[in-house]
């Protein structure tokens, strides 16, 4: 089967590249082994200091509600982080003092939302906090079963009963100016968080839970849908296992499920993610890119790979595939002519493109431009 471009990896980077290439009239396919880092997405796009119209358009057209407002956002443990672009689920404030009195709502039996850490953190900022637990019939044992309560299971129930939560919160609300709720709303319908805000007569802030991330899953579904509406072919649950490279030009890629039916294209994009997604692999001796065996940018001395203090910046997170200014990689020093590398597999090798979601989006748009030129 032949396409203009075949993309390996369907995370944020692969999807943004796929969508913008389809918009430019190219035919593309994305092959992806299962899901990606969007399932753990906080809702906030890291390292985006400005918001180009092109990026806002992609999100708007996919029905993803984002807002651009440089400032800080509340983290799940009650601390703050500088941010500028986020999903509407996540509030951005000019300063950490976003309220005076705060009502924090949790669900009885739900352990993946850290209400007391949140309260502690906010009290440090001089806010007064009160925590209340809601007991909803929909979230009791026979309804949710023997599984632990997880964000997605709760979110599924909330899709039907979020109005009930609004009513309960209205009853509980005393003189608080702010209400904090866990991020478990609007799995199917991105407008629910906004409607909850309209229903509660106070400022409403949604705070992160342990994974999976409800806004992240929704965003992934919306981007994939948009990509398919634009005519893209998304091969979910398949893995690229190899490629045929002839005279430094990638001819096709081989997948596990399509076996002898190769996917051919003029251009190929590698968006297979970092260690977590197996875009990069490490063993006791080396760190490598398993698909094309591309040249890597990393320190060979294993002792320098990690910092023994877990919470510190870990050097291995900086390692990535070595590419030129056009994000093109090489093998044994020889450039591969029609291959591009985007997203977190780049590590921190291109600081000018940022990190996290910012890197995924910027590198995807840059490569789209190069391919469509």
């Amino acid at each position, binding site marked *: *089967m032949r396409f203009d471009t075949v993309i390996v990896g369907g995370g944020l980077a692969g999807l943004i590249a796929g969508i913008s290439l389809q918009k430019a009239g190219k035919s593309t396919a994305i092959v992806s*082994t*299962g*899901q*990606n880092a969007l*399932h*753990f997405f906080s809702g906030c796009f890291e390292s985006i200091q400005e918001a180009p119209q092109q990026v806002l358009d992609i999100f708007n057209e996919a029905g993803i509600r984002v807002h651009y407002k440089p400032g800080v956002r509340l983290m799940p443990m009650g601390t703050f982080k500088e941010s500028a672009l986020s999903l509407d689920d996540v509030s951005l404030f000019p300063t950490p003092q976003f309220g005076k009195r705060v009502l924090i709502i949790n669900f009885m039996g739900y352990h993946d939302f850290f209400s007391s850490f949140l309260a502690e953190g906010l009290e440090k900022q001089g806010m007064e906090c009160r925590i209340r637990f809601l007991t909803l019939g929909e979230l009791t*044992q*026979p*309804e*949710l*079963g*023997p*599984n632990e309560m*997880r964000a*997605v*299971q709760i979110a*599924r129930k909330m899709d039907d009963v979020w109005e009930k939560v609004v009513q309960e919160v209205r009853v509980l609300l005393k003189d608080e100016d702010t209400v904090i709720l866990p991020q478990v709303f609007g799995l199917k319908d991105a407008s629910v968080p906004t409607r909850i805000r309209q229903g509660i007569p106070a400022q409403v802030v949604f705070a992160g839970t342990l*994974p*999976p991330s409800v806004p992240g*899953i929704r965003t992934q579904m919306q981007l994939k*849908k948009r990509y*398919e509406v634009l005519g893209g*072919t998304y*091969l*979910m*649950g*398949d*893995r690229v296992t190899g490629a045929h490279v002839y005279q430094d030009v990638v001819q096709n890629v081989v*997948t*596990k*499920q*399509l*076996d*002898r*039916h190769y996917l051919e294209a003029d251009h190929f994009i590698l968006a297979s993610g970092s260690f*977590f*997604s*197996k875009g990069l692999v490490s*063993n*006791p*001796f*080396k760190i490598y890119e398993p698909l094309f065996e591309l040249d890597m940018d990393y320190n060979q001395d294993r002792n320098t790979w990690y910092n023994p203090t877990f919470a510190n910046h870990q050097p291995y997170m900086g390692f990535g595939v070595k590419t030129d200014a056009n994000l093109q990689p090489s093998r044994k020093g020889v450039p591969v002519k029609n291959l591009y590398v985007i997203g977190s597999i780049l590590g921190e090798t291109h600081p000018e493109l940022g990190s996290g979601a910012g890197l995924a989006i910027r590198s995807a748009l840059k490569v789209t431009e190069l391919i469509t030129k």
Partner: protein
Amino acid sequence: MDNGIKFQEYTESTYNFEECTKCTVCTAFCPVLQVNPLYPGPKQAGPDGERLRLRDPNFFDESLKYCLNCKRCEVWCPSEVKVADLIQSARLQYDTTPPKLRDRLLASTDFMGKLARPVAPVVNAVTGLPLAKTAMDVMLKIDRHRTFPKYSASSFEFWLKRRRKEQAVFSEQVAYYHGCYVNYNYPQLGKDLVKVLNALGVGVQLLDGEKCCGIALISNRLTKEATKNAKHNVSVLSKAVESGLKVVTTSSTCTLTLREEYPSLLGVDNSAVKDSILMATRYIYEKLEQGAKLPFRADFHKRVAYHTPCHMQRLGWGIFSEKLLRMIPGLELTVLDSACCGISGTYGFKKENYETSQAIGEQLFSQLRAIQPEVVACDCETCKWQIEMSTGFPVMNPISLLAEALC
């Protein structure tokens, strides 16, 4: 230097379960977990449970029977854990209660077919009667809402055998694994395939005595019987493959069973034949891609919605059916968001599963009600029963649509 890589190869676990990073992605998509609180979900039933079961088989949990074996967890898992295989193999290995009479009956698609076919009108009439349905519901716990697939009075094998000579004149030949459904319930699909392949200049042969693929035996824990069928099928498939034939199929579930479940769940080696077993839509797409032409009618017009059956999704071959449908002039195609229809073979026929089954299907049914297609296209026969029963929209295999669109 490369010792490290070998080391990782040696530590590969059964069904890859140690690769599980506990990321919870699978739990977000399991269709049963969304509607049935009794089910522990793919993560707990699969890799988490396996750790415990390996330690002590008493950790086996009977609720694993609620798993549909739809394989969607495997499609979404970023770490390629064979979650559904883990669950099914645990059921085969640890559940020691004897399968119920009802489960045996439902599982014996071949046997029921052979038994019913000569008296098809009678069986159809009887299984359709309200009294018989109530009796089945009460005594066998087969849900009364279900309509049994009709049995055809004449089998597909009988039909094709009578045409052996006219098929032999084609210079190119394929063997067709038709499965029980085409043979006993819906020979028309087989006839449609013959029409399309003949139009491509390809003659169709039967295998030398195929048996039911055995998926229903597997899901009802009739391991011995399933393994017997598997060995038999691999041997007749080998014969065909050795003589240079490709084997085409029209059911995604039969295909997944022949290609994946035999080695994975039954330990039956199919490596000699696996690569030669292809869904007919893939076989035909590849022919057209290589330049073959089909004589399409000019006056064909249909609004079609394509539903990717779970096992087609797992095979990763929905793309072939979709691209093939798009090649039909006059066919207006909508591809549905892939969602399980809820029936999963014999699962939905069981009284205890009826509600779960319908609740799961709702995601798909509501899409169909919104689109109002003339026809739903789909490569699975049990989906066909479920969608037709639940929505009233007619369901056709892509091959039958193709046949209808030809001159």
